[in-house]
């Protein structure tokens, strides 16, 4: 479950980096469209993967609850980091 959470955080980070604004913050240059697309795609895939991991550990009902409640944490963490 912890592993799934970690992957969730990474996925959210990827999604954030896929956005021009945050990419600029980190690398001081605008993101190339291709990179942005790639980052977003991996972000979404990782997000799905983290959910899959959670389901494989806890079973779908409980995993959904965990996953959805952890999501705010990772998003807020990222929002605090990204600024």
């Amino acid at each position: 479950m912890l592993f799934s959470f970690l992957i969730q955080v990474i996925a959210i980070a990827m999604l954030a980096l896929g956005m021009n604004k945050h990419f600029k913050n980190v690398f001081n240059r605008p993101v190339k469209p291709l990179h942005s697309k790639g980052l977003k795609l991996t972000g979404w895939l990782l997000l799905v993967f983290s959910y899959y991991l959670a389901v494989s550990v806890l079973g779908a009902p409980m995993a959904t609850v965990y996953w959805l409640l952890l999501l705010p944490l990772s998003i807020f963490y990222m929002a605090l980091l990204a600024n």
Partner: protein
Amino acid sequence: MKPDFRRTMIWLHTYTGLLLGWLLFAIFLTGTLSYFNDEISQWMQPELSAHQQHENMINISLARLKAQGTDVDKWRIDLPGQRNNQWRLQWQKGKERQSLYLQGESGEQVTPRATQGGNFFRTFHYTLELRNYGGRYIAGIAAMFMLLALFSGIFTHRRFFRDFFTLRKKAVLKTLTDFHALAGIVTIPFCLMICASALIIYIGLYMPWSAQHYLDGGTRELNQKVTTYLPKLEPGSAYREPISDFSVIAGQVAKLWPENPNINRITVEQPFAANGRIIVERTRKLSLSNKSEVLVFSSHSGEPLAGMPPERIARKIRRIFYGLHEGHFAQPGLRWLFFISGLLSSALIASGLVIWLYKRLEKVKQRHAGHFIVERLNIAGIAGLLLAIIGYFYANRLLPVDIDERARLEIGAFLFIWLVSLQHSLFRPANKAWFEQLSLASLACLLLPVIDIIQEPSRLMRAIEQHNLIYLGFELALLVTGLLLYKTVKALLVKPKQVKQKQVKQKQVKQKQVKQKQGKEDKKVTLKHKLKRINAGSKADVV
């Protein structure tokens, strides 16, 4: 058409939020607290010591209950578990019910102080202390409005999706708006679940028409028909001595429930009849549904009897919503996550209210009565509620133990303090009222553990000895809340020259952040519970 749609959505969001915002804040905050219902109750009844379930417990209970006479219709044994420390016996003759609390290895009787404990928050969050005056209807309407506000909020803060993860830190109002939008988006699943399940729990109250039309008995008959029960006991059965050694059943329970054999409650129906039965209920852990998982045994032989038949899908859906709302299945980690989500939603509502006010105050030169009312209600609704909650805990410690109507008085204190805070906010300048109420809340939070120690030092010592993390955690949570409130207040004092409105805004933001942090820090704290124990211990030493 499109911009018009957005405009109506913004209007809807603004005014549904404003109209019921304070009510929703109170409901969400008290509801969030009731995730720790049992833990709060445990702190509020310090007479009961923490104890593990031990093997003799059930046999002692059975012996005690047998001594109550053979004409008793029903026994109930509530066993302490991971979260609560109540070892309670109840017996029922006809309609008359009596109960007593036990503790210790040999089960001596204790009388804890009369209090509603954490249950008060639970009942308050849906009845608003107005059970007979339509409180539950009001709460239902509030839930409906919350759903509407959520939906329209998506369109109102549409711009936020474009730069997700942004918290503009320069202007306070902007930070607050960003926080509001971000919190709104991340708590959508949580709020949806909470509001929808709230409506579904009281479905019979809010939407009784279909059942009334198709069934003669209305919603009552509907409930009876969709719920499965154990078969009814035939009266007039021969006398049989009930079992006194529970191990016969305990072995079977362990075999039938290998993955979670923790027993939560044992009910014995018609204990002295030949067809009497023992119903064993386990703690909820594995399923989201709120259907109790039971095993049934004969009361005199311990033979297994037919259990409860499973329910059909419609009832199961409702059960799952119910279970999700209550979160009884949640283990500590998950419980904290629920708690944090609840705090975030409360912060979402509060920040929305504050934004409403200051967006308007920025634009207008001349304030009118509406601004005044909203401003005061913000203070009383947010800071005042915090004060009232803390005041409730104070009342629990400071009221004499043997006073009449004690539980009522505690609730009276809660309501009274809230009222006083409203009055106070009416007669003070807004920023002063914020400052005073928040600093008072902070001080009160910090002092409460101290008062607890002065009053009865042995409680804390016992909690440390018994590794009672719940008791210590509660005190620590109070200290952390107090410190964070103090920081908020201090942050306000640093910039006294700023415009009054801005100051209040600042306070608000901080308060939100405080709440957030509080949730997070508390979580960290549980993770490092060992550290916590040491911490609390050293604090006790200092005092």
